[in-house]
């Protein structure tokens, strides 16, 4: 059987262990290179994994954006997270489920088709076998790529996907705990604010640095490169105050003069244009 077209993320990160790891506490870590930006992707990807592995959602821990353990999936953008990461996780989980059932069947001297999975435990004719993902995980070579030959579940078999699940990221967000990039504050970090050009092409002819320093009221470094200026300080509010003051202490040349005519459609239509 020819391997189907795999999602790009899985082609780029072919090892199963980039995506899945069975923890000792009877949970499974699913890793994704996509991150939560309020779109609910951590919840949605967990749902996909839970269904494919026949696990309750509580046993799935989604590791997101971890460059040491997880897959490199480039950016979280373009509404591709479910298609790329979800598609990959779906195939990986289907493959791992099949491998785990193969191992368990060998131990139990039965066919994998005789086994069903309930809460991660493998049942034979509805009876407990003592086997589960965690008893056989050590025998699976997770360094392999997926064959792509294992068929994931069909839609009518879904139990978790399609349900309106409460967002997993929200409890931290309503209690002020979620860590945003802004919350990472390294020791001895310097803060900077910039002075913006009022319009493209404007050139900075003068900057009253003494006046800006007076307004900033603190330790301040002014970095000036052509028409770009940055105000750097170990104290965030000093950099902020400098940038606020800078606007009135900067003199610009080649300022664009806007007139009411520029707001008219006729002006816009009269500009040079290139049809594409």
């Amino acid at each position, binding site marked *: 059987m020819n391997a189907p077209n795999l999602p790009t993320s899985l082609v780029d990160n072919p090892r199963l262990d980039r995506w899945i790891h069975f923890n000792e506490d009877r949970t499974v870590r699913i890793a994704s290179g996509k991150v939560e930006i309020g779109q609910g992707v951590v919840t949605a990807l967990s749902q996909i994994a839970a269904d494919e592995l026949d696990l309750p959602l509580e046993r799935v821990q989604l590791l997101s954006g971890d460059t040491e353990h997880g897959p490199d999936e480039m950016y979280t953008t373009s509404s591709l997270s479910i298609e790329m990461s979800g598609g990959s996780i779906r195939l990986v989980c289907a493959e791992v489920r099949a491998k785990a059932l193969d191992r368990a069947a060998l131990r139990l001297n039965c066919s994998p088709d005789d086994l069903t999975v309930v809460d991660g435990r493998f049942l034979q004719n509805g009876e407990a076998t003592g086997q589960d993902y965690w008893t056989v995980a050590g025998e699976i070579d997770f360094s392999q790529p997926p064959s792509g030959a294992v068929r994931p579940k069909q839609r009518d078999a879904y139990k978790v996907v399609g349900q309106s699940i409460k967002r997993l990221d929200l409890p931290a967000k309503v*209690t002020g705990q979620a*860590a945003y990039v802004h919350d990472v*504050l390294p020791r001895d970090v310097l803060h900077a604010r910039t002075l913006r050009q009022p319009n493209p092409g404007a050139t900075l002819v003068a900057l009253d640095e003494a006046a800006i320093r007076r307004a900033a009221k603190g330790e301040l470094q002014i970095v000036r490169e052509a028409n770009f200026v940055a105000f750097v300080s170990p104290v965030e*509010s000093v950099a902020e105050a400098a940038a606020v003051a800078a606007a009135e202490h900067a003199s610009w040349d080649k300022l664009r003069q806007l007139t009411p005519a520029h707001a008219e459609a006729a002006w816009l239509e009269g500009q040079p244009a290139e049809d594409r």
Partner: protein
Amino acid sequence: MLSLDPSAREARLAIAFTVNGSAKSVDVAETTSLLEVLRNHLGLMGTRYGCGLEQCGACMVLVDGQPVYACTRETGTIAGRSVATIEGLGTPDRLHPLQQAFLDEQAGQCGYCLSGILMSAKALLDSNPKPSRSEIVAALDRHLCRCGAHQRIVRAVERAARSA
């Protein structure tokens, strides 16, 4: 190296106030924003920096029970006062009824606005336990949710008021 301009330095003395019931003292210029003190000096990252211009409400905290933009509030004016932030409202294990209502209504996406909104909502319910919908909208008028969860947020505050 950073150059130090002595003439530009302000006299400093410790500013004492309480945050979520605990006594705090910080050694900063009086003009330092309360938001910077909370985040950079006291490590309370739950109060968010949004615009820094009193335009978005992400930084809202309560000072003596009243909503205040922490981004522009000078810390010198906080001396002796009582500050409440999202960290003092509740934890995932011990949610405040407002936080529970926000989860029940799934009122939030990226979540960046929620700390400030929850604090304004707390001030509202403390002074007006059964607000009308229009009173809730008015109380949250200074807050932006760029994801567009405003309708759910208003419903969550209504729910919290009902449950109280």
